[in-house]
């Protein structure tokens, strides 16, 4: 007996030296029922990353993270699951290969090889991926209907899924209940099937992005006309018309809340701060010697525009959307789609202007930002009107250029190294998605008085280096 006491005392001594702090509390739902969660949206919602769609991307989308946190809430108000994505079968990318970091060789300098996103070299198309996705749960339940490429103004377009498929964007065709129906019908179908008690709606980014990633090829004034009169498909190279945006958004939202669901409306970030628009600096024309500057000055001597060439960094020569050749000004953006080899090897940006489809000029940037502000104003008024949480993602993204630290990592909008955006420079990494989920959770908690826990975003996959 005595011996046991001795051991007991000893254990106690060590137990005294093992403090524990567990402050994870059971989350509560506040004024919301998270029981049936429906995610409505586009590329980000669908988990598109690294220039393609993969199972990993889908399962690391912010709706998945949100569902996991919602399901920590006890019954009856916690999310009950399953949370069904129209999952792919392969992880190589669909329909084309995903991007991975690899070595890209310059075409003109044999020894020049730099670390850059390249197409996944071992890609093979998986025929199962291309098949129609059948959900065998609860009469075809799908909870995440985020679909790449969908704009708000596409919601009333009949056969949009088929049309997009024809453009090489097969994601909607893979799971829409009827490819000939409108995205609005698809939403209605899912609402009728799921009876969502909570939804997130993050739409509208593509209404500006599809203009910007093509270097601003429309007139940018927000008065785009349908490219096919009667069908209602607005010019995808232009900014969606404001009035069409408002009415389609309003209709979709009214469908989402028809059964009395609570929800969060997420606004549109300033897309011009995405790495896609910032990875290549507009002053990337590096001149080593005064002689090079003199050569360029002589080359453009006949031009009326203001030009500055000197040793060091110089603004690239570009062509704007009016086909005028000129030197870019600080603040103008060169797109990541611009072929680097043409700059390195073919004199793009110096003796040959960078084509306008790879450039966002000052006025184009203004058009994009003005449209975003205008769309966001509408989303805000909708949230107010319907008493829904308004997630100011625009504000959160605006903290990225100076670095947004999280658990010791400073996330930024820097291309590849910033950690937030994946290798396509547009869509988030799994960690970026988790940080987005945290921002949404923060807003839900303050609006609906819930106590959802945030997620440790650093647990999820980041950029893999070779």
């Amino acid at each position: 007996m005595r011996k046991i006491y001795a051991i007991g005392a000893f254990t106690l001594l060590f137990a005294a030296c093992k403090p524990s702090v567990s402050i994870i509390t059971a989350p509560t739902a506040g004024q919301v029922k998270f029981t049936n969660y429906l995610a409505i949206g586009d590329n980000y919602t669908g988990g598109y990353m690294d220039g393609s769609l993969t199972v990993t991307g889908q399962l690391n989308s912010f709706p998945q993270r949100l569902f996991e946190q919602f399901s920590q809430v006890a019954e009856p108000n916690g999310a009950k699951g399953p949370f069904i994505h129209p999952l792919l079968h392969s992880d190589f990318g669909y329909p084309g290969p995903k991007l991975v970091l690899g070595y890209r060789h310059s075409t003109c300098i044999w020894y020049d090889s730099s670390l850059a996103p390249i197409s996944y070299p071992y890609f093979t198309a998986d025929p199962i991926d291309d098949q129609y996705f059948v959900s065998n749960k609860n009469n075809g339940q799908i909870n995440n209907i985020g679909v790449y490429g969908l704009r708000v103004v596409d919601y009333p377009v009949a056969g949009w899924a088929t049309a997009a498929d024809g453009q090489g964007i097969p994601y909607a065709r893979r799971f829409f209940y009827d490819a000939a129906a409108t995205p609005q019908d698809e939403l209605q179908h899912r609402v009728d099937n799921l009876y969502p008690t909570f939804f997130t709606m993050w739409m509208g980014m593509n209404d500006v992005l599809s203009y910007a990633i093509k270097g601003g090829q429309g007139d940018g004034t927000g008065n785009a006309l349908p490219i096919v009169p009667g069908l209602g498909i607005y010019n995808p190279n232009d900014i969606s018309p404001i009035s069409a945006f408002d009415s389609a958004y309003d209709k979709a939202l009214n469908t989402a809340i028809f059964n009395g669901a609570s929800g969060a409306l997420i606004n549109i970030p300033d897309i011009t701060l995405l790495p896609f628009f910032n990875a290549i600096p507009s002053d990337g024309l590096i001149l080593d010697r005064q002689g090079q500057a003199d050569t360029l000055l002589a080359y453009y001597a006949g031009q009326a525009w203001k030009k500055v060439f000197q040793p060091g960094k110089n603004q690239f020569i570009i062509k704007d959307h009016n086909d005028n050749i000129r030197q870019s000004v600080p603040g103008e953006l060169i797109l990541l789609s611009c072929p680097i080899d043409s700059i390195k090897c073919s004199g793009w940006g110096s003796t040959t202007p960078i084509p306008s489809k790879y450039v966002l000029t000052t006025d184009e940037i203004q058009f994009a930002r003005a449209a975003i502000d205008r769309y966001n104003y509408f989303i805000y008024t909708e949230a107010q009107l319907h008493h829904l949480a308004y997630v100011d993602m625009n504000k959160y993204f605006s903290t990225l250029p100076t670095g947004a630290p999280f658990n010791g990592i400073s996330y930024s909008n820097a291309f590849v190294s910033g950690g937030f955006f994946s290798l396509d420079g547009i869509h988030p990494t799994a960690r970026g998605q988790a940080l987005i989920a945290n921002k949404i959770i923060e807003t839900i908690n303050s609006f609906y008085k819930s106590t959802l826990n945030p997620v440790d975003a650093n647990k999820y996959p980041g950029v893999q280096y070779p």
Partner: protein
Amino acid sequence: MKKNLLASLILLSSVNLFGAGFQLNLQGIRQMAQGGTGTAWPWDASTIFYNPAGLARLKSIQAYASIAFVMPSTAYGSSMSSARTHQQTFTPFNVYIGGPVQQDSRFAIGLGVYNNAGEGMKWDDDWQGAYMVQSINFNAIMFQPTLSYRISDFISAGAGFVYGTGTFDMTQAMPVHGLNGPQIVYGDNGQAHLKGTASGVGFNAGLHIKPSDNFQIGLTYRSQVTMDVTGGSAYFTVPNSLKDQFPNTHFNTFLPLPQVASIGIGVRPSEPLTINFDLSYIGWNSYDSLKINFDQQTDALHNMHAPRHYKNTWVPRIGANYKVSKVVSVMLGANYDATPVPDNYVSPDLPDADRVNITCGASIKPFHRFTVLAAFEGTSSLKRSGKYEYGNFEGTYKTEALSFGLGVYYNL
């Protein structure tokens, strides 16, 4: 024309930082057992540390050695996860030799070798704060040659030059992945490992005032010792494609061990009982930020600068020594060690909080001239919630520690 566009694309952005040294208060076993008091009462040769002026009060030259076993443990919790540091035992030690040069001489000399700063923590490699710190170990040993002079029976003075030497070792996860190939593996992080030796100089001076045998006062000032780490080694474990961005290189930094001013009062209300009060003012505000400079910098590897903004603190201590018999004494004490770390700078490499230390101990004098000492200290920090804003790392910490001390001394 050369247009090197992609050179600056692969930057890393971890918020890098590492820890402060923290003070140990285990330089003498009898003092440790009395809450760390010792400024006013020159018990033994460890007064070389506690108050150099006390050395001239010793009756003869004394040789002193002690060792402590410190077992700290820190727990962390947040709304995302909880964690605890690994069990580790640290063994700070002290050696003193010194006393009056001759019987009844006013002049005393001595040498002290003591550990007065150190910290060590090891977390799981993939814990929530891994990008702040995975493990840290800092240990400083001070060498202090000391002179002391008894001006009169009323007052004596003493001072010592302090040379500090130490080691520093720290690991931190880096947010680069792919070390195990292209497959996504959880916890597949890069790692930065900084390792180096540190050194610094300072001094320790004191006055000892003895109005009577039963009432004594001590005043001490220990200067700041800035421990410079020069030519430390920085190793980076990163995927092959980033090796040229993170070359193994050398780094320099410094850790200021703070200046401390103390006043102590000791009273002996009756023959067997001595009571000591100490009050120290600790100049932590010298630890304003941590700067690490790398010899070789790249687009991705920059000098680091982490704000600390520590605040000066007051530490009150109380202790008592009770002489049970000619052979045995027992000790009891306590102190309240307020944290220098402001709420917005609580970081997991040194999640400091206000600490309460309760101490006790005993001494036995089995033979003439020879004494054996033992002490126990229990440390409990208050649970502290804080955030390191610079890295946006939030959580609640609780630290506990058990320390055992053993010592011997011999009067020559």
